[in-house]
């Protein structure tokens, strides 16, 4: 056989990488999630040296590298710092399209907290709007125990 290559479409090989795995949340993250689950409270971690409250909580201050253990409760309401509207399909997304992710600064926190926005007209979302957490009835110790944040008041 020595005939030359026929001109044709490239052959497409379908592949898949399938990776189930477990992520250990750790002590600080576990307390954060169990408080969401058991008492619908959102906890942050304060660094007194830097006067910063981190939500979600951190075990180590990213500014001064101190070990942190000063838990503080922050509000279930906050202010929208930024947002994005998701219009493409991806298996990891928890909601039907289109929907919005927001970065929310909860009252008493110094950092932004990423979560879903719900019960809101996507076109009416504005930076600076007030939002409140909506908790699920059935909670499992997951970040999605907060169903989403909706406009407050």
């Amino acid at each position, binding site marked *: *056989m020595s005939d030359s290559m026929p001109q044709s479409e490239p*052959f497409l090989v*379908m*592949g898949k*990488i*399938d990776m189930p795995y477990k992520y250990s949340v750790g*002590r600080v993250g576990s307390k954060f999630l169990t408080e969401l689950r058991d008492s619908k409270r959102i906890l942050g971690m304060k660094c007194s040296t830097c006067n910063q409250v981190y939500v979600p909580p951190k075990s180590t201050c990213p500014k001064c590298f101190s070990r942190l253990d000063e838990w503080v409760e922050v509000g279930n309401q906050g202010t929208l710092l930024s947002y994005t509207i998701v219009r493409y399909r991806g298996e990891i997304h928890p909601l039907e399209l289109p929907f919005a992710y927001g970065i929310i600064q909860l009252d008493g926190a110094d950092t932004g907290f990423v979560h879903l926005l719900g019960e809101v007209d996507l076109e009416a979302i504005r930076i600076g709007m007030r939002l409140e957490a909506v908790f699920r009835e059935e909670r499992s110790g997951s970040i999605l125990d907060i169903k989403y944040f909706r406009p407050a008041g």
Partner: protein
Amino acid sequence: MDKEPAAEELLTVDFHLVLPYRWAAGPYLSRFFREIRDNKRLLANRCGHCRRILLPPRVVCGKCRAPAGEDWVELSDKGTLRTFIKVVQPGWDPVEGRYRSETYMVGEIELDGAEGALLDHFLEEQDPQNLWEGMRVQAVWREQRSGDLKDILHFKVIQE
């Protein structure tokens, strides 16, 4: 006695990440896979410089680092078992998304016409006591083929 603190609850989160992808096999492998799918034929190409057989066929010879050329060679689906191994540690199968639960036999097979080029594939025989180097084997093809080396179910021992 002091009151013992409540046991700390540590959580784990289960993820199941599935990443489907596809890749274009390029001119030589496209032909290789199409011939498997449509004609149950195994194709190789011979390097124009070092004259060795490349299986699967390659555009560039890995030894010469030069275009291997289009000297196509059709290989038999019969060959000689050169070595084999029994796999007993179940590995992760990323395509199936689970551990391979059974032990299995893998052979390195020199197909007739391959001149030393070896093909790794599964063997039908599961007892290593019944296998030896130099045995004759033949591919068992699937009825439904998609253009993949898995279109060969396994190699079976043949008497000639």
